Each structure stands twice: as C-alpha cells, then as structure tokens.
C-alpha cells in the first residue's frame, strides 16, 4: 500500500527556521519531524511513500533521496500551494484503491498506521484516526456517533467543544476522497478538513481511536517539549557517533543526542534535553540545557544556553548568555503568555562575545549581534544589533 505524506506547508509560526527549510524538516531528537513519521511507516504494510513537497523541496529530497529502509520514496511537487486537499489531489494519478494520507508535521507511532489500514480493510470506507488531547479546541474537534465521525469543527470555542477527540491527521482513503475535495473551495484554497466536513453530511467516515504518541509542533517552544519527549525513547539514539569528539573532562548526559563530527570541548556540560546536530562545536566551559542546536553551529567558550533553539551555521561568541525561562511571546497577532523559550536564534547568525539574550527573544536569519549587546524581542532577518 502507498502512503501520501503532505509536507508542502510553510509553517510560518516557526519563523525564522522555516525560511530555509519546510516545517517537516525541523529536527527533534536530532532527526527531522518527517523522518520520525517515515520511520513509523517502515514497520507497516506501507511499501511506498509519496511525499507532496512545495517550494522548499530541496531539503526534503536531499535528506531522504529515493528510499528509507525498505520504503521507496518519490516526490510530487505542489505548486502553487493551495491547501492540504489540493496537495492530495496532486498525488491522485499515483494512487490506487486504498492508500494512507498523513500530515508531515506531527510525530506519530506505527500503531496509528496499522489501525487505519486494518479499519480500511474491514470496512472499505474512508477512515480518520482520532486522538484525545487536553486542549482539543486548538485542533479539529471530532463529534462521534460510536465508530463514525458525524461532525468536524476546526478550533471551536472552548465552550462549544463537542468532545476531547481531535482529528489526528492520519487517514485511509480510496478514490472517493478526490471527488469530495473537488466539490469544495474556500478563498481559492482546498483544505482536506473542509472536504471531509462536507463528505460526512451524506457519507460514512470511520473513526479509529488512537492512544499512542501524537506530538504536534505549532509554535517554537513545542520543538523543545517534543524534543524532550522523544529524547531517551527508542526514537532517539543517545550513543555518541564515532566521528564525534568529546573531551574526557566534558559532561554529556544520557538523555541527549549528539550528531556526526560534533566536538565538545573541555569542561563543557551538555545537560538534559539537548539535541546537537552534525558538525557542531561546543566551546570549553559552555553549559547547554533543554536546547536544540542545528548543524554546522559554533558555540564559543563559557556560554550558557538554556531553553534555546539555535539555527544552522550560526556562530555565537564567548560568554553568550541565554539564561532560559518563561516569557510572553508575540507570534504574528497572538501573544502567548508564560511560554518556556530562552531564545530562538535563526540560521547564519553571527554573534560576538558577551551577548545577552533575554527569554522569549527571536532572532532572524543572517543577523549579526555585536559584542556586549543585550538582545530582546524580535530581531528581523539580516539586522545588525549594535551596542547602544
């Protein structure tokens, strides 16, 4: 059976990291979110994966190439990107009587795939996996009649939330779905959930309850919580690769993961909840905790970095301080109160020594930070932060 993974979305709330890579390529536990998903497909009846990709497809294609384990991988370009339903339509000619469709930005388990495949085989009806979460009103809330979805509402008001179950974004479909997608169009876009909402008016949509891992990354701090949730599980390798160099006087805790060719200098401490990408240098005496560091990053000596995300190819000078902790963070129009985010630093940032980054700061790509600066709030791409 084939699986279609929808990976063309932009993920604007994860700026600036999504400027240079699509959201499914953001790493948690040192592997892109999409790799966790494709990995979950390897143990199932799926033999071939079609990845629907958008304008940032280079990163996905270069990472996965043409196969993953025994899975064959091919790519379908969605251009322009007009919603998840439109994305699925692009794959139509490659799909047979039954296939799996799933979102490329949520970490899931093998069990959810097996469950929707089994139900599809039993009933030959369209199937949606649903899962129970604490704050369902941020997602598509599902109204159920026993095993059937009878209502679907995106982000309902908390008072009008009809159940704790949400659409998990994993489906089994047949060709019937394409007709349903073609029937709808809102503001020039075709969303898969809109199509399903119309579909259930007169047809049956099977619901499969799922209790396993379901981790969504919507906002930057979700990267840190999802990273922590996966570190120390079988999805994360805590063995240090042979090509990495760790000085005997450095501390690298077990619930961390270190990439290829990375070097940890003397007296550095890599504490719980840390993922370090490939070809990274952690300077002498630096302390890192609850932090994600992408590839090709250089962190100089005596730096403190807590609750932080550092983009690729960024260099931070000696004595940089990201003290970590809680802050109110504004993303587009919404202010998120009291979230854990020491800082989000973009790709290719060049920081001097003694820079202090206050909690909740988001620094755009290619920014430069002069030595001794005190950085807070939102810093645009390519800005130059000077000492005032």
């Amino acid at each position, binding site marked *: 059976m084939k699986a279609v993974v929808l990976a063309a979305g932009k993920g604007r709330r994860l700026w600036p990291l999504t400027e*240079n890579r699509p959201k499914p390529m953001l790493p948690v536990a040192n592997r892109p979110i999409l790799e966790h998903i494709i990995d979950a497909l390897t143990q199932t009846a799926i033999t071939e994966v079609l990845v629907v*990709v958008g304008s940032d*497809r*280079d990163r996905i*294609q*270069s990472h*996965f*190439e*043409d*196969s993953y384990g025994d899975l064959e991988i*091919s*790519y379908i*370009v969605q251009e322009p990107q007009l919603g998840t339903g439109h994305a699925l339509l692009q794959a139509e000619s490659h799909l047979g009587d039954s296939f799996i469709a799933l979102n490329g930005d949520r970490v899931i388990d093998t069990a959810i795939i097996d469950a929707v495949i089994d139900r599809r085989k039993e009933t030959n009806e369209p199937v949606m996996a649903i899962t129970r979460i604490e704050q369902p009103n941020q997602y598509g809330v599902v109204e159920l009649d026993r095993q059937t979805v009878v209502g679907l509402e995106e982000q309902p008001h908390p008072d009008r939330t009809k159940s704790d179950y949400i659409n998990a974004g994993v489906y089994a479909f047949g060709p019937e779905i394409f007709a349903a997608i073609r029937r709808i169009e809102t503001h020039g876009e075709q969303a898969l959930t809109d199509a399903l909402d119309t579909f259930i008016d007169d047809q049956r949509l099977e619901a499969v309850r799922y209790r396993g891992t379901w981790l969504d990354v919507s906002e930057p701090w979700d990267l840190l919580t999802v990273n922590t949730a996966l570190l120390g599980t079988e999805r994360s390798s805590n063995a240090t690769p*042979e*090509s990495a*160099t760790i*000085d005997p006087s450095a501390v690298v805790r077990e619930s961390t993961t270190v990439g*290829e*060719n990375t*070097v940890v*200098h*003397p007296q550095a401490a890599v504490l719980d909840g840390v993922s370090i990408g*490939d*070809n990274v*240098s952690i300077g002498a005496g630096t302390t890192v905790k609850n932090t994600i560091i992408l*590839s*090709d*990053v*250089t962190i100089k000596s005596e730096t403190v970095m807590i609750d932080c995300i550092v983009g*690729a*190819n960024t260099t931070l000078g000696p004595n940089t301080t990201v003290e970590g902790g809680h802050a109110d963070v504004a993303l587009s129009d919404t202010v998120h109160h009291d979230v854990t985010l020491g800082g989000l630093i973009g*790709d*290719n940032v060049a920081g001097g020594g003694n820079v202090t980054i206050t909690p909740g700061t988001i620094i755009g790509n290619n920014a430069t930070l002069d030595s001794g600066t005190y950085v807070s709030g939102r810093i645009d791409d390519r800005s130059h932060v000077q000492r005032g």
Partner: protein
Amino acid sequence: MCGITGYIGPDDTGRIVHQGLKNLEYRGYDSAGIALTGETLTLTKTAGEVDELTAPQSADATVGIGHTRWSTHGEPTETNAHPHTDCTGEVAVVHNGIIENYDALKRELSEQHIFQSETDTEVIPHLIETHLADGISLLGAVQRTTEQLDGSYAIAATAAGHDGIVVAREDSPLLIGHSDDATFIGSDATAFIEHTNRVTYLESGDIAHLTTDDITIYNGGEPVERSTDTLDWDAEAAGKSGYEHYMLKEIHEQPRALRQAISGRINDLATSVTLEVDLPTEYVQSIEEIQIIACGTSYHAGLYAKDLLETHAGVKVTVHIASEYEFNGDRDPWRTLVLAITQSGETADTLSALREATRAGARTLALTNTLGSTVTREADDTVFIRAGPEIGVAATKTFVSQVATTTLLTVHLGQVRGTLSSRATTEFLESLRNLPGAVQQVLDQAPTIKRAAETYADSEAFFYIGRKAGYPVALESALKLKEISYDHAEGFAAGELKHGPLALVTPETPVIAILTDQAAAEKTVNNVNEVESRGAPVIGVASDLAVTSDVDTVFEIPACGPLEPVVANVVLQLFAYYVANEKGRPIDKPRNLAKSVTVE
C-alpha cells in the same frame, strides 16, 4: 569510452541488461545495444540513447550483455554500436577500451571475414570465430584472442550454444556483481547496484568464465582467487531523488559530502588531522617536490592544492595535465611525491601518467572518490574524498570534496614538515568546519542565482577572472558553464586579461569576477574596472561587499577563510546550471562528453 554490463540469472534478462545500460549511460550515450544468447543469438541496437532501445525478448536466452557507447573509432551509428558479431552471427562481443593493433588484425582477417563496422572492436568476434572453428570452448577462444590483442580492454563475449559469458580485462575497468541467485558484470557497480553490493574486481590480465552456477577466474592460464568486497553504496544513491537533474541533486548534496570528507579526520582538541595514509615522517620531511597529475575538474582542484601546499606545507608543487606529463628535468624520484587526482579512479590519462611516475621510481599517492578503482590499486597509497557516487557528467560535489581533502593533506604535511603555524592550522580547521554550513547558505540563495542566470543567459560569451585561489575557481567555473550550456566560457588569471583576452570583451560578454578572501580581490577590482570601461557587465562573488562597488550583479557569500573561493565555486555551479537549464540543455548528458574518460 563506454559502459558494459551483463546478466546471468532467473529474471527477465533483456529488461535487467537494459536497466543496467540506463544506469551506465553517464559513461556514454551516443549508441547502445544488447545481445541475448541461448541456443540462438538475438541482437538489438540503436544509434541513439538507451531510451530509444527496446528491451529485447528471447525465449531461449540464458545470458545477456549490453553496451552503451561514446564513440572513439567510427561515428555513432547503429552499425558501429556494440555488441559486434562475427560472420556467423553467433558470437557477440561488447568492449570498452581501445585495441591498438586492430588495423593490422583487421587487414589479416579481411581475407576470410566480412567486417560490418568501422570499430576497432569488431576484430574480437572475428578472432573468436576463428578459434571456435577449431572446436575449442568459448573460454579457450577468448584466451587465445586476448593473446593477439594489444591495447586496453574490458570485454564480454557470448556465443550461441556456448554456456555463460566470458569476460577479459586489460586496464579498462570491469567488475562482477554477485546476488543470491544471479551474476552481473559492469564497467562499474552503478550498472547493477540496485541488485547487489557484493562485487569482485577483476585485475589486468584476468579472464573469467561466468555460468549460472559457477564463476572461474584465470590469469596467465592459471585459476586465481579474487576477493569479494561489499560496497557501502546503495541503490538510492544512484537515483535522482525528485531533482530534475543529477547535477542539481549533487550540487545540493555538497554540505553532506563536505561533512563526510572531514568526518573523523579533524581532531579539534589536538588541532591536528588524521588521514589514513602511510607516509613516513622522514620521507615527508625529505620531499623536494610534489607533482600533481590530473585532468579536467580534478586538474583545477590540483591548482587549488598547489596554492595551499606551497604556502603552508613549504614544498614546491607542479601541477601537470596528466596527458602531457613526463617525469623529466633530472628530478630525484626519491624526493618527489606524485599525487594523482581522479574522481573515478579510472581516468586513462591520469593512470598512464601515474604509471610513468611509478616507472621513474617516485612514490605515488591517489586522491579519488571510488573504492576499489584502478588508481587505488596502482598508487602506493590512497586518500578518499568520500563524496559518494557522482553521476552528473559535470563534476560538482567532487570538486569541493577534492579541495577539502587536499586541505586536510596540506595540514597533515605542513605539520609533519613543521612549516604550518598553529594559527594557520586553527584557521584551516575552522574553515573546513565552516565550509558545509557556508555552502548550505549559498544553496539557500538558489532563487537569486537563478534570476541572475536568466538575465545573462543569452550573452555571447562568459569570462571568469580570479587571482590566487580564485584563479582555479575561475577556470573550474568556466568549465562548468561550457560543459553544460555549450556557451563560450573561459577562465583567466585576472592579471592576464590585459595581455590579450581583453580584446574579446564587449558589452555582450559578462565577466564574472572572484572577489573573495584568498583571491587578492583588491587587485582584481582593477581588472573589473578594465572590463567595465569596455562596457561588459560584471558579476562579482564576494563576502566583503566593500570590493563590489563597481559590480553590476553581486553574489554575496559567507566569509569562510582559506576555503572561501570554494564557496564562490558553488555559486557559479548553480549559475552554470541555471543558464544551461534556461536553454533547455540536456544537463546530465552534455553532447560529446562522458563522465569518466577511460581512453587516452
């Protein structure tokens, strides 16, 4: 220069041989053919690409051989396409290499044999026919035939009514692949890598008889054992991964290739490098000269290495186009290290130069991408660039990996010779570490480079200028453009412009200036002014925008220390790609060119 493949096994022989040819197409693609052999022989040929060849079917075929050709003797016609047959139409032969004495053999045979083609290869099936007429086996007939041949060859022969395939190797590459129920042959492993990664490399002089259940290898008439190696490639590495062209895929693989090139080789804590070469300290300290031998892109990597080695390893370096190389000038072979750079490890010109160096008694070191290739067996020692398979004819990732690996070699030799300051060491190691990220940053700017390429695509000619390490990058970037876009493109040392080439510069010829660190940008700026006053548009590549005030189009790259010109090369790879793509050129298969050139 060609690719050969073959198959013995239970599956659809025609289809598998056809796929093998498809995989080998980068070695040659101007004509192709397949012979299926059982009790009878079925032959299919085309004067075009493999796609134009229909996979043949034959009910009684037990074995198949195929060939994709890059013409040396005779035009790319159907008649000249391999496999070639004898007068009876029962013997089929595919061949890669050159039979040097074919003219004499052909004259001799012409009395009793009728020749169809203009190729050197056709003498082989006719010779086999003559020997088979004595009632001996196909193996015996091929053994006798090879005794009559001079030159380089990898051949595979089948004959109707004879069991299996007989292959013979003299210089030209040939290997056998083993899967659980089938046997494959190929000019390289790409031919069958989707079926198996277990291979046996044949050595020069080997003749092997492959049948359904047995493989016997002979050398000088005696049975010999050849080991079986497991390649760490897999089939995925030879696909296009959703990219329109292998070249674009390989350009985007460069950050990963560079991380692999340095992986485990940099010891940051001790600021030293580890290379898996065995060069004794006393020897390294006694070297008076390093001679680099290479062709094409590898030659440009050699020029870059010269700059690094002379400055930092304190040793005289000469770079030689391999086909022009001679060991002369009263050099002391004991104090000369010869470094052969070849991506494929099979480049005939480079191998021939290497043999010249070996004959003279010099120590030899190979720098290659290909495990098990001929150069690795012939040179005293090998350093691998670890770039992974490169299929696009225009080399991209292997150039940057070659430069990165020669940088490691420079640090190693400089440290052993005591000529490299600790500050320079740190600078080099930082630069190497920063290179993958810097290259990724350039790749993220691809849309900007694409727009500029579209603007300039219709120009009459393109001139690339640079100084110091920017000079080899200018040469290499110009080679990329001419290879795939067919535009007139030349690289010049910036200072040479005024000594002649300036006469070519007009408002229709953009000049691309390498204005990076390590490239004496402040001097090249004067040359930029020279061409601007002739009305030529100027494209500058720089990290420091202070030097680009007079430039029409700027490609800004991240600062990357001693290896910054390599980052500029990546920009210009993309520029060449987008110019060629704008013109609709067959980027992975440029006319008249082939990937690894195994003829001299």
